[in-house]
């Protein structure tokens, strides 16, 4: 559908040359098969539209898992000059700091395979999931919520739900600088209050997985991963609070775009200069919502770890649960990168993309300084997920890589395809226990609804941006 001639740069890179209002070219990472998928919808047009925004630096990037979003495509990265650039809620998305964390354990999959069903059931009982899920943290008052927004995962740690080490192993230490609860509307606060510590619905999940394959022994050792190990992935975001922050600020940015004379090829790209009062206030609110999400994943992890100890009747030491890392997939951040040969602070939007810092990069905990940052790329519930590592070469994309599989079937089409089938039983026959809050979710989220994440990860591996470390396969999955 796209009206753009893509220029192939090499096996993994395609350029959208500058035309019309584009200030920079577009750069899409994909192989032949993925590029033909990408060309089926209007996401290439969206990459080109983002290239029109004031202050964009170098390229409007698209990761191989790109698909159609609003304004910005999902899987897009846009870095902005602080003086001339804009910040856009659409460049982050509705689920602010939707992200994933990976918890390793000392358990060996073969030794606990008879207990996976009981473990998954116990985790399901202990984790509020699904539409309207609430009440994970009892008696959470307005003041507590404000503190969560300003302190992020540190709030959970201060309340006995986690350790300092967990914060070391979380992007931004789970607490983003510049967060201001007063920039979050009372309506967003009210929408979030009951939802703190809940998983939510849709593509969010908690999964017990087995490390099926190690590609990079050194990095796997540094991450504490070994073949046959049981690990846990937690994928969720900022729930209704983040959605409301995005919704509120789209309403602020629509008139602001007009006020600052920003010419928009698409209304959903509405934005304001980074240094304007509207821009600063959105960043402060977005950072607060990001903190809310980090606290959610911290609370869910702490509860899940405790649940596994009880379920298996083993000590914390025997379980050996430790956070490997926690990454954001939907966020805007101030970061220092080399622009025109000079280290410069920029604002980077990652919407459906993962930060992938290479070795030696400040901001990484000591334990990952030598290897680079763990990059967590979840797949669908039937196939696999990947742990990768950021490289020095990732500077090409301002240290950004892919984030997941991306849908190939609409929810409607997935449900139609699942009709007459029992997806839960099909997965059980393959040794995967799935428990869902709503049975419709399982059909919508069935493996065939997604691209194989291996294809996506391979492109970024071959392009040199993020290298494969380990492959995880599902054993027990909880869905909303």
């Amino acid at each position, binding site marked *: 559908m796209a009206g753009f001639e893509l220029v192939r740069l090499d096996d993994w890179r395609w350029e959208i040359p500058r035309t019309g209002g584009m200030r920079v070219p577009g750069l899409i990472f994909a192989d032949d098969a993925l590029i033909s998928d990408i060309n089926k*919808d209007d996401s290439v047009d969206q990459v080109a539209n983002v290239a029109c925004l004031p202050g964009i630096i170098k390229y409007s990037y698209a990761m191989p898992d790109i*698909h*159609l*979003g*609003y304004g910005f495509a*999902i899987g897009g990265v846009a870095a902005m000059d602080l003086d001339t650039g804009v910040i856009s809620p659409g460049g982050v*998305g*509705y*689920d602010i700091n939707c992200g994933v964390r990976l918890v390793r354990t000392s358990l060996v999959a073969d030794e606990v395979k008879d207990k996976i069903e009981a473990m998954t059931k116990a985790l399901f009982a202990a984790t509020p999931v*699904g*539409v*309207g*899920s*609430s009440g994970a943290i009892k008696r959470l008052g307005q003041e507590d919520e404000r503190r969560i927004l300003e302190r992020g995962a540190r709030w959970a740690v201060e309340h006995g739900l986690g350790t300092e080490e967990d914060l070391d192993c979380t992007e931004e230490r789970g607490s983003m600088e510049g967060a201001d609860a007063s920039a979050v509307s009372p*309506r967003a606060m*009210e*929408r979030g*209050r009951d*939802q703190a510590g809940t998983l*939510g*619905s*849709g593509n969010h999940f908690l999964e017990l997985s087995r490390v099926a394959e190690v590609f990079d022994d050194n990095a796997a050792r540094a991450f504490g991963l070994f073949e046959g190990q049981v690990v846990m992935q937690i994928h969720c975001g900022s729930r*209704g609070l983040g*959605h*409301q922050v*995005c*919704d509120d600020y*789209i309403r602020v940015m629509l008139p602001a775009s007009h006020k600052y004379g920003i010419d928009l090829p698409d*209304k*959903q790209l509405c934005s304001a200069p980074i240094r304007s009062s509207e821009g600063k206030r959105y960043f402060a609110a977005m950072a607060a919502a990001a903190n809310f999400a980090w606290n959610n994943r911290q609370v869910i992890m702490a509860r899940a770890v405790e649940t596994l100890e009880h379920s298996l009747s083993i000590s914390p030491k025997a379980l050996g649960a430790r956070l490997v890392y926690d990454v954001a997939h939907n966020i805007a951040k101030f970061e220092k990168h080399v622009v025109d040969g000079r280290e410069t602070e920029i604002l980077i939007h990652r919407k459906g993309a993962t930060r992938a810092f290479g070795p030696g990069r400040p901001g990484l905990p000591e334990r990952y300084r030598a290897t680079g940052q763990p990059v967590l790329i979840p797949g669908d519930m039937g196939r696999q997920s990947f742990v990768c590592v950021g490289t020095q070469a990732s500077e090409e994309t301002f240290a950004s890589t892919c984030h997941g599989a*991306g*849908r*190939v*079937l*609409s*929810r*409607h*089409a997935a449900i139609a395809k699942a009709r007459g089938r029992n997806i839960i039983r099909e997965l059980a026959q393959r040794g995967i226990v799935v428990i869902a*809050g*709503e049975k*419709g979710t399982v059909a*919508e989220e069935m493996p065939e609804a997604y691209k194989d994440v291996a294809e996506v990860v391979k492109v970024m591996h071959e392009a040199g941006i993020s290298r494969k470390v380990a492959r995880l396969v599902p054993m027990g999955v909880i869905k*909303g």
Partner: protein
Amino acid sequence: MAKKRYEEVEHTADIRLKVYGADEKELFSNGAFALFDRMVDLDGVHDVFTDEIEAEGGDLEETLINFLSELLWRFDARRRVYRECRIAELSPGRVRSLCIGEEFDPARHHARQGIKAVTFHDVKITRTGKRLSVVITFDV
């Protein structure tokens, strides 16, 4: 046979619904029905209370999106689920509606699909013959 109040339009990542109405009021009422029908099985929702809900906007489309966003907020923040919204007053810039429903109870009600937001994506009310329609995209 009753006329269809809404139907789904294909969209890979999110949900797009085409909502119909004989007039603007019915279009708004059917939009509210479509939103809740996607989120909850409304057969199990009883008439327990009636809430008066208002919304404003710069034009009819914006008023519609703001109205649906307000309903979504009521569901998510206050656990209100509405089986039916009757439109009492409607002008391009303002809607006043009476919504009938009850408190959402996960133990008793059957939830369907979480919706994050009602978007402004390509929203345009159009007339075909005697009927109005609008395509609304929901972020899920």
